[in-house]
């Protein structure tokens, strides 16, 4: 496999409702910006990968509808749909297409327009014989898993609230973020509406309209086109068994994320993630999940995630800034969300992250999360 790199990124300004644009027009905004960032013309693209969860918008074959917006006409184009991991998985598919030698330049675009449908209702269309009668969408699943995590690891509501505060403060410096609040406090979070015990409004990711894109290039093209490409050091995806009850202790074990991360750590020589990564963009659908991921990803020993957030280790300026963009808690157009993680991490390496740039970032971790089970991980670096 050839080395590949990300040479450009583009995002919409994510929002609750973008009724000024159709789905293809939304996709075009992000795709255009990524092309401009990479200094390319549409004709330079060899292939397109699209990420979207079509049931959320109730539109069959969205890749056909929005493909024109993504410059896909007359080119190889496919869609990836794996829940929340759709975005990261589509990026990894793009990496593979370029790494295999099949294509030199691939555009990956993810999008979602939650305002046009009913995401939670769509998500609850699970096994009609088993859990459809008791499904409560993403919120119910997260909340269920959290009680067990809190009981076993002693994580508190205050510690979770600190994650929300960090996220919305970071988002205030990201022009693309949906929810920004430079003055958010722990009390604001603890006083926000209870959605599903113990998850409060500010603990939970929003539903956003938005699109995000990256341009992936083979090593030769990347060197030609980009002064400082974000090299893909390793990438892995892992899927799980189908039912929430199949997964042993869920947030506490998350074997897919553990396996995917250990696989990329081994490939990229990461033994001390907290020291070796300069920045991480991780898929945290809810505050408590970010804490659980600290433990799963090896940023701290089990049971110490609360201390990590209290000590500011993952704040901007801390030892390992986690989600300088504001993360999923600050913008969540699902099909785009994983692409946003990858685009944000790439921007950090490219040195184009603007007001939320981590100075001198050379090694970045990206993770994706799907339904309650699936996981992706990738490592980007400044050296080929």
């Amino acid at each position, binding site marked *: 496999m050839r080395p590949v790199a990300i040479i450009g990124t583009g995002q919409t300004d994510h929002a609750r409702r973008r009724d000024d644009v*159709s789905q*293809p*027009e939304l996709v075009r905004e992000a795709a*255009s910006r990524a092309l401009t960032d990479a200094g390319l013309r549409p004709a330079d693209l060899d292939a397109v990968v699209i990420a979207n969860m079509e049931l959320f918008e*109730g539109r069959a074959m969205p890749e056909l509808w929005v493909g024109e917006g993504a410059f896909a*006409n007359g080119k190889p184009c496919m869609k990836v749909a794996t829940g929340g991991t759709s975005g990261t998985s589509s990026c990894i598919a793009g990496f593979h297409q370029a790494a295999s030698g099949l294509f030199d330049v691939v555009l990956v675009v993810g999008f979602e327009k939650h*305002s046009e449908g*009913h995401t939670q209702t769509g998500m609850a269309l699970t096994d009609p014989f088993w859990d459809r009668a008791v499904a409560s969408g993403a919120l119910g699943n997260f909340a269920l898993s959290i009680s067990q995590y809190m009981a076993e690891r002693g994580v508190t509501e205050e510690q979770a609230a600190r994650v929300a505060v960090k996220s919305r403060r970071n988002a205030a410096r990201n022009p693309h973020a949906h929810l920004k609040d430079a003055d958010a406090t722990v009390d604001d979070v603890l006083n926000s509406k209870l959605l599903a015990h113990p998850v409060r409004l500010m603990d939970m990711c929003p539903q956003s309209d938005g699109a995000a894109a990256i341009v992936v290039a083979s090593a030769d093209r990347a060197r030609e086109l980009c002064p400082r490409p974000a090299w893909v050091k390793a990438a892995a995806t892992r899927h799980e068994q189908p039912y929430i009850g199949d997964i042993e202790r869920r947030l506490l074990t998350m074997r897919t994320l553990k396996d995917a991360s250990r696989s990329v750590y081994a490939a990229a020589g990461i033994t001390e993630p907290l020291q070796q990564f300069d920045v991480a963009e991780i898929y945290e659908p809810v505050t408590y999940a970010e804490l659980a991921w600290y433990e799963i990803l090896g940023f701290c020993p089990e049971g110490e995630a609360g201390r990590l957030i209290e000590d500011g280790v993952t704040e901007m300026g801390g030892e390992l800034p986690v989600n300088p963009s504001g993360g999923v808690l600050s913008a969540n157009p699902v099909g785009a969300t994983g692409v946003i993680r990858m685009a944000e991490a790439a921007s950090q390496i490219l040195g184009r992250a603007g007001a939320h740039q981590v100075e001198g970032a050379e090694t970045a971790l990206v993770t994706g999360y799907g339904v309650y089970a699936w996981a992706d991980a990738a490592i980007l670096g400044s050296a080929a």
Partner: protein
Amino acid sequence: MIREGSINIPFLYAAGKAGSEFLVALRDRQQLLGSHCPACARTVAPARAFCPGCGGEEMPSVDIGPGAALVSWTDVPGRGVFALVRPDGADNAMLHKLLGPAEGLRPGSRLRAVFADERQGHITDIEGFEILGEGS
């Protein structure tokens, strides 16, 4: 064992920049709109924000129709005649209904858009295409 069920979900789709312009023109002017790409010298129907050919975003709207040419059709029993019609001034066809029986139709048959009396900014503001004759 068989289980039957249903899925009931409401959706609300934004027509967007080009789509809104197209629907407003149907409603207010009983007019079909296409978009013209100067680079490709091609007009697409209905209006859209970017060129399917070259990807360009400079796509001024142009009036097309109401006359149109029949491209192909199918007669669905109980539901009517569906057809691909190419509005005059456009280089591609769009899908809509034909008003009237499918008898005697042939590719190139002349058609004309018929607009609904009550229009609300929806594709059904075009009631369908009436059949004028065999054309050239």
